[in-house]
């Protein structure tokens, strides 16, 4: 599997570290809502199909990326910097 990093170009996936579901992990709720925090920390949609996920280019530019990948075929539809999302905050 190769990931096209916006900074470094197409690189082998073993240069990256994967964290998991981007939509779940980037929507961190405040700590005082226990039910929402349980959802965030533990529950995952885990789809068979398109999955937006956080990858860290640890052996490259060290940026967090949101990779949209099909979990059945490993075909990557899109790679974007995690920090370019609306509120400008890096995950």
């Amino acid at each position: 599997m190769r990931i096209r990093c916006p900074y470094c170009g197409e690189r082998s996936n073993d240069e990256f570290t994967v964290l998991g579901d981007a939509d779940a992990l980037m929507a961190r709720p405040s700590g005082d809502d226990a039910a929402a925090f349980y959802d965030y920390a533990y529950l995952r949609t885990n789809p068979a199909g398109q999955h937006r996920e956080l990858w860290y280019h640890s052996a490259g530019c060290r940026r967090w990326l949101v990779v949209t990948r099909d979990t059945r075929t490993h075909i990557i539809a899109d790679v974007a910097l995690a920090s370019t999302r609306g509120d400008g905050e890096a995950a």
Partner: protein
Amino acid sequence: MKYSIFAVLREGLRGGKGWTPAWREPEPKAHYDAVIVGGGGHGLATAYYLAKEHGLTNVAVVEKGYIGSGNVGRNTTIIRSNYLLPDNTHFYEWSMKLWEGLEQDFNYNAMVSQRGVLNLYHSDAQRDAYVRRGNAMRLAGVDAELLDADGVRSMAPFLDFNNARFPIQGGLLQRRGGTVRHDAVAWGFARGADSRGVDILQNTEVTGIRVETGRAVGVETTRGFIRAGKIGLACAGNSSRVAAMAGLRLPIESHVLQAFVSEGIKPAIDQVITFGAGHFYISQSDKGGLVYGGDIDGYNSYAQRGNLYIIEDVHEAGMALWPAIGRLRMLRHWGGVMDMSMDGSPIIDKTPIDGLYLNCGWCYGGFKATPASGWCFAHTIARDAPHELNAGFRLDRFASGRLIDEKGAGAQPNLH
């Protein structure tokens, strides 16, 4: 038909004409008292124990492919009960005890081979951790022996004891651990369940779970709707997808694990040996092939095939442990999709939906659990309450903080 030496002799003389299929291919009935979704080891064992221990025989196992096409037929066949935390220790030890009597119990040769499982240590800290684990096991009545380097050398002289980075200092040995012929486990449970009246419905995919006023009442399948008094899910790597049919989100990610087999060689390694400085474990099959594996690929996957960098990683670890295997050719490799849970431990429980029961979260180690998992899940379904042995494997433990995290890795499935 009962299998025995006499049956083999009789059929040998009759040209094998008297052998009958090991299970039927029935048409689905309109209603069952219990439907088990997933004809892997756990689903088949559940049906077997529902019939045998609880007298529930109007039961169906619904399998989307053929039985044994999932992880039960893809694993590296290791059984052991060398866990640290009490919930796991007692549960897996019960599984080991069931393995020890299984072949007589279900009248099928599953080639249960208690050849020993040896976990190597390479540092003082790792030895201390194994001392602690061995003591925990012995306190729970499980066998465990700590070996020094000479003790390991007498069992496996071919290992690289003086490896510059990871010298072998010793190992923790569970002699009762070993391997089992994985396909035969599926077939044996299937035959045992079928002979007690359970319908095994192959090539029947569950496409929906019907819930009426908070109660699960049946499953939609590719062969029509089947009404069910109770529904048990045992879908391993596909647990999230099937549970989603009832609106449940699970603390599970699906990941791929690979396994490898070398060309066949003469008997070389008697035990299952695991490397302590990287993720690598190896044993030898009766056909002579070395059977080995290592880490999961690390990203969510429903593809039953793995990636090249893990192949490299596993072989590097193998070479560090046993350099002579570099002369062998790898014959086959494959992948299976596993249900990695958020604390690395399984779930066998009721769900918030009445009549719907859940069995999942087996990670890469659920084969050894097969008999106990089926036994406990059958109890949970039949009695509508968990058995003492699976009382800790609750679905709500993630919300209540009662995690069972052997590695202390946290809510990161790809680290367990």
